[in-house]
């Protein structure tokens, strides 16, 4: 079940340190979000990180083969978890997103992302395709993606659901579906979008309109994005300095410790700081993918690619949210937003990435 203890030394240290650096920047940022206090966010987040570290190490030490064997169990467990969430979930902010397990409020949808990717990896591995994949062989992954998407969407948590569906589609695309299908679906989507617009409920249409022009509702739904843009814009080239952000310290920025942490960071460290963060995440994204080029097993390649894509994708969506490029959909900034489930799932993902990156196929891991 576990690797040899010695193999711990073979991990990709660069990736690991990159991870620590990003987490540490997140900690400093949470410290400044509380106007220079460890309490409550930075301290709690650090406590969680230390608490999750054994889980991180546990997954790091697992044999990939063991993971391969339990993907279906993981998927079924998370789907059951999602269903339980729907019926017995803990309601917050108008949605049932959390279930209570051992003193923690867990957001099952975060783990559903991992479970789905692992399932896909195993499915396409077993498919052992010679060339591109047809529609027929993509049906099962598509259906499973849609089931998870719907279970999350009706919580309702459209943001996470869209990310789950995206990950599913990316996995299918990566696995080699015939390019005709994705191109065809894009065309169909383009044509039918006016009809989809009429299917949206008025409040959803309203939300899109406000996204396109936040000034329509400057004190209501547009308030977040206006204040966030002010925070980021006022940072300028070099930022207002550590703890120098007035938008954050005077509470103009709502949800500053969760969805809008980037605005706090950017107000303090400016364009320069934003570019540094972007660079760090780009490295975090590209290192596993670079490694995946040297692997031949579909299971390994797909996990490395889609999971590292997941972190970068969430990063991009979150930043785009804060600068008004996409609507505010409630996607956390990996390792920087305050929140347990997001931190735990991203730590699990990184453990998986490090685990698989340390595979040397010369040693024939799967034998």
């Amino acid at each position, binding site marked *: 079940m576990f690797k040899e203890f010695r193999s711990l030394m073979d991990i990709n240290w660069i990736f690991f340190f990159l991870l620590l650096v990003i987490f540490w920047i997140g900690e400093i940022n949470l410290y400044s979000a509380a106007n220079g206090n460890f309490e409550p966010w930075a301290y709690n987040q650090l406590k969680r990180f230390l608490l999750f570290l054994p889980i991180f190490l546990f997954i790091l030490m697992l044999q990939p083969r063991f993971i391969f064997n339990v993907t279906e169990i993981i998927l079924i467990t998370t789907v059951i978890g999602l269903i339980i969430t729907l019926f017995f979930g803990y309601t917050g902010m108008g949605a049932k997103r959390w279930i209570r397990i051992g003193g923690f409020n867990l957001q099952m949808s975060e783990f559903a992302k991992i479970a789905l990717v692992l399932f896909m990896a195993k499915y396409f591995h077993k498919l052992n395709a010679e060339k591109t994949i047809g529609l027929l062989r993509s049906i099962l992954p598509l259906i499973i993606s849609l089931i998870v998407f719907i279970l999350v969407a009706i919580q309702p948590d459209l943001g996470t659901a869209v990310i789950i569906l995206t990950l599913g589609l990316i996995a299918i695309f990566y696995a080699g579906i015939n390019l005709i299908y994705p191109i065809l679906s894009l065309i169909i989507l383009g044509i039918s979008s006016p009809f989809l617009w009429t299917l949206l409920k008025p409040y959803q249409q309203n939300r899109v309109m406000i996204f396109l022009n936040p000034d329509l509702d400057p004190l209501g739904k547009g308030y977040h994005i206006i204040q966030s843009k002010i925070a980021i*814009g*006022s940072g300028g080239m070099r930022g207002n300095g550590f703890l120098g952000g007035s938008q954050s310290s005077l509470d103009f920025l709502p949800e500053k410790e969760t969805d809008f942490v980037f605005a706090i960071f950017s107000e303090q460290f400016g364009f320069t700081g934003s570019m540094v963060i972007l660079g760090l995440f780009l490295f975090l994204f590209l290192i596993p993918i670079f490694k995946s080029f040297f692997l031949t097993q579909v299971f390994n390649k797909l996990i490395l690619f889609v999971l590292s894509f997941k972190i970068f994708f969430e990063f991009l969506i979150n930043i785009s949210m804060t600068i008004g490029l996409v609507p505010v959909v409630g996607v956390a900034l990996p390792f920087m937003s305050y929140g347990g489930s997001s931190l735990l799932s991203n730590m699990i993902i990184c453990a998986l990435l490090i685990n698989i990156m340390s595979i040397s196929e010369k040693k024939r891991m799967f034998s």
Partner: protein
Amino acid sequence: MEDNKTSKESIKILNRRSFIIIFISVFFSLFVILRLFSLQIINSKFYKKKSIENKVSVKAIPPLRGDIFDNNNNLIAGSTSSYEFVIFKNLNKKFIDELNSLNSILSLDLNLPKMINEINKKNPYVPYKISKAGWDQIVKFEKNKFLFTAIKIQESKKRYYPHKNMSQILGYTGSSSLSSELYPKGVFHIEKTFENILKGKPGKIFNEVNSQGRIIREISIQEPIKGNNLHLTINLKMQDFAQSLLPLTNKGSIVVLNCQDGSILSMNSNPTFNSQAFEDRDNLVIERILSDNSKPLINRAFSGFYPPGSVFKPIPALLGLQKNLINENTEVICKGHSTLKDRNYYCWKKGGHGRVNLKKAIKESCDVYFYELAKKTNIDELSQLATSLGLNQKYDIGLSNPQQGLVPNKKWKKAYLDQGWYLGETLITCIGQGFNLTSPLQLATLYSALINGGKYPKPRIHNDENVSYLGDAFEKKYHDLILESLNAAVLEPSGTAFKLNNLHPNFVKIGGKTGTSQVIRIKEEDREDDLYKSKEVEDRFKDHSVFVGYVPFDKPKYVASVIIENGGSGSAVAAPIAHKALNFAYNLNV
């Protein structure tokens, strides 16, 4: 678990696909970078400004209004503190309980449901005014202070007028309905005219506020600058004394003017009002003042216009002398009336004055002399001379709504009545009736002009205003003759105001001219019956009593002009009042 031999083709596909997605991701990242560049580099200034606007709130501190003093440095308008109960609802969640206890302890009779509704709508960090706080209420409040955490006493400044008799000169201040006006400004008379001197400059507090508007800290403060003080030429003692001279039964007014420098010592009008009522927002009293038919807001010394009556006569006399229509010795026989085109123009003295020269005509106020003079007088020249002697012009001394009054001429009549001029009208104009309209201030100025020989100091009420001169000097011999005649009217027996000497023998000697301005034209038959002099005549149709005098008679310094509406003859009513006022002014000698 099978270790697949993945085909090379398949690996190629997978790697190619990852490049496509990396490419799309990087492409999207470029969008993010561009957007960040636009926000943080290109539009950074805009957002920095927005950020400062977010966090800095500016609050104005009203400046203290300048004080107003009389010519003896007595305060006549200042600022005082007033107190009110205010509530900060953020200081106590149970603020409604506090309101209830305040209401019952001080028995305030507040409309609580309405008030609570208003408070709930307001920003919690801005105090809400509950009511005015009097001293008794403040004492009670302090005794029960342990009950209140959200309710506080707040001080604010308001205008304070210690002397009621100054109201018709000072006016009052008021709050504007414009939201841009943060504090009261002058809306009437001196307070309005000298607003720019008095108002001062508001200060500013720059506060850093959080998203709820709560003040985090004070960034900086610009202290307000108090308005400049204003010094008036008005003398408080003179003003109070003159007011006491006006009979309460009649409307009337009195002006005392220093004819050497044009400064106005007092300017009273009856009925009057109290400016303080407007500052105290005493709505009951204000309503009463505004709805009063006797119009107490009007300062009749400045804004009351009447036919001047006989006090006008020196003007046609001077014109006659200047145009050689008459000289010192020209005589007219007065038989009680003069005839023009089958119409009789009567003298006030039924039996007539007999032989009358100019001095006697002024001293005894013979109307026939002036009717005869008028027959040769050009009305336009008369109007022009009257204007240069101070009538027929606006005095913008600082009171609201200055008016011009009227000394008629042909052009005016054509323009306003679309009629030609009749000689008969010149006759009644020359005795100060007809279209003539003058204010008491104008009459005082006219006599100041006569005393000064034509070139006279412009009347003024603002002490810092330089003395400036109006009018054109006329010949000294005419000047002497006219003053001699005016002195005779008071000092010589048979002068119209000679009675004054018996009334107050130890008062300082004055010169002056009586006037009786008719309110209605007397019918011929009534004149025969002497009915018009009887008590039967309704008060509102009685003549206005006018007197303009100066003191001392030989070297005049002060001029007083008195009008008592429907008071009767000038010698009986207005002259004694003017005599007392002039005597007072002379002894005051400011």
